[in-house]
């Protein structure tokens, strides 16, 4: 099968849904004429025209609100943030409006809305490097999708578009396999291998709320998402040669969270490392630890090892950025701690 990057996979899923369903539209900065800062909406304006692909002013709160209003009245908008760091400009519309309207209306209003964009630390300083999913995992009324492979990304974006709830769809820049807006070469990461890059051309949907065991193992479980999944897999491969069998679970969606698959893995290995690129304190990794405490405490033979970004704004200098964001070595060390504790 074809091998395409995550950017192309997300694009293909969107294009196929737009062909199938005229109510799907796209809104965002430079998504039309320019094809998106990371080219994820490349050529979509040409194919679908300006009534389906809206090049907006720099007004994140405003165009998010427009997306909500359109979602309430028969459309299925996809809103792109040029970097997910900018979603904070629209936070009220996301947290107080989109996520709450369904409940506040007693279930009468539906808000089929996808909020998507790139995130992740790539040397651009504190305002272009954040991982935002923790804030939205903490925001009931929303779903949060975190694809790590092109295959998952295509199946999940299709499900996100078909979903009747607001869905945050997180894309990691280093997984895009596409160039940055600076016009340089595609960003990448040495841990990324060809896993799951076989992406069928026909549309397919991966249900939200179903984790995927990306690697079977017996001795210890790593739970990781997005870029961190690839680093976890690199660690697992390395440890295999040393006789350690590592299971790697990719939740794929954080809300809803597939607790069953996680619990089954913990019951098997009894030792767990959770890895997330977002800020450690009250973030995704904290919730995973708490979920395991809630459901699997008596299965644990050692404390869950929490590996996540340091509790700091992200520094510009590459050496410091690397220290803040979990690296392969950090994950490996955590696995060894989980095994020895």
């Amino acid at each position, binding site marked *: 099968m074809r091998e395409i990057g995550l950017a192309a996979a997300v694009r293909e899923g969107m294009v196929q849904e737009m062909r199938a369903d005229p109510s799907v539209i796209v809104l965002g900065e430079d998504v039309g004429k320019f094809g998106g800062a990371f080219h994820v909406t490349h050529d979509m304006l040409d194919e679908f025209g300006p009534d389906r692909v809206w090049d907006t002013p720099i007004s994140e709160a405003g165009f998010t*609100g427009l997306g909500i209003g359109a979602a309430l*009245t028969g459309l299925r908008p996809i809103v792109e943030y040029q970097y997910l760091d900018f979603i904070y400009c629209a936070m009220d519309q996301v947290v107080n409006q989109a996520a709450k309207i369904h409940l506040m209306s007693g279930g009468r*209003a539906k808000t089929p809305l996808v909020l998507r964009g790139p995130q992740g630390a790539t040397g651009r300083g504190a305002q272009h490097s954040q991982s935002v999913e923790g804030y939205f995992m903490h925001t009931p009324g929303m779903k949060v999708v975190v694809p790590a492979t092109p295959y998952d990304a295509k199946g999940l974006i299709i499900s996100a578009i078909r979903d009747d709830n607001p869905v945050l769809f997180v894309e990691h820049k280093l997984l895009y396999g596409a160039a940055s807006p600076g016009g340089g070469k595609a960003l990448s990461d040495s841990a990324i291998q060809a896993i799951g890059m076989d992406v069928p051309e026909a549309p397919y949907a991966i249900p939200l709320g179903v984790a995927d065991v990306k690697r079977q193992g017996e001795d210890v479980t790593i739970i990781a998402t997005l870029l961190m999944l690839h680093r976890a897999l690199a660690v697992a491969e390395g440890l295999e040669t040393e006789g350690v069998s590592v299971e790697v679970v990719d939740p794929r969606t954080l809300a809803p969270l597939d607790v069953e698959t996680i619990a089954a893995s913990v019951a098997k290995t009894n030792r767990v490392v959770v890895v997330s690129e977002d800020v450690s304190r009250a973030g995704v990794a904290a919730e995973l630890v708490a979920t395991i405490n809630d459901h699997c405490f008596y299965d644990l033979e050692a404390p869950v090892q929490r590996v996540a970004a340091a509790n700091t704004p992200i520094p510009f200098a590459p050496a410091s950025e690397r220290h803040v964001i979990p690296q392969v070595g950090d994950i490996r060390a955590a696995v060894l701690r989980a095994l020895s504790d």
Partner: protein
Amino acid sequence: MNTATEILRGPVDCGGRDPALLRRMFRKMLEAREFEEQLYYLFLTTAMPGTMHQAVGQEAVAVGVVSALNADDTITSTHRGHAHCVAKDVPLNDMMAEMFAKREGSCRGMGGSMHLTDFDKGMLGAFAIVGAGIPIATGAALSAKVRGSGQVAVSFFGDGAVNEGIFHEALNMASLWNLPAIYIIENNQYALSMTVAESSALPDLAARASAYNMPGLRVDGNDALAVYDAARDAVERARKGDGPTLIEALTYRIRGHARFEAAGYRPAEEVEAWKAGDPIERFAAGMIAAGVAAEIELNQIRADAEKAVEDAIAYAESCTDVGADDYLAYITAEN
């Protein structure tokens, strides 16, 4: 109408209007008024949970605007939203049941006074975050344009809301894209304790429209027909594809900001002057002056409106209390 300070009185000019329209508008204003008057007493008895914001004295804006809309046109409302709902034909029974936190409420008891919603009536929601409904109505207008439905979308909001950034962002896009949207500033002179001059560098709020290359006009918001005419023109523009309009309706909230708030920041003479310009009394006087209806007929409409609200209260009291875990059904759309 030029300044916020010249308070208009006297009968509304009802000459040459469709009597059925006039009666309907009168009835709607009375229902909105009576609904909130009764709420006030219900809150005094502490039978009512939560809080509420009365629009007493502002009814002509809601009714004037909505009377110019079709049933399938959409609106967004605010924390002060009862009159908008009444005007948009949200059933009084459903509204009252919602206030009582009953399962039969328009939001199944999940929303309450500040979040009344009725999709069957094109009432997209009351948003209690100041300004939040403005882009949402704008999105409904974008949707109408994309779907080619011919609908228009109206956003109601207060004089305080114009200072939220979201107002700016939404109006720019609406104008840029000629969306069929109408923005109604209910300028009731205060945002809680703050006068318009204390919070807006340009207190002529309608004039702000020029920054978006959009027509902006100011009307006597206590004259339901002046409001109606302005809205009708804006609706026509919008439906023709000529884009949005900003309308500033000058009015006054006779009561405090919320429930029992005493509004001590307002001069007594000012309140009295506005009371003398009550929009419902002016409308009644206008109907009589134009010979559309006699006092006795108006009294019958008044009695009918009161009865409708009384019935709504009785209905609401007979409804089922929301259960402890009702909410579980409404967290996400698939529940």
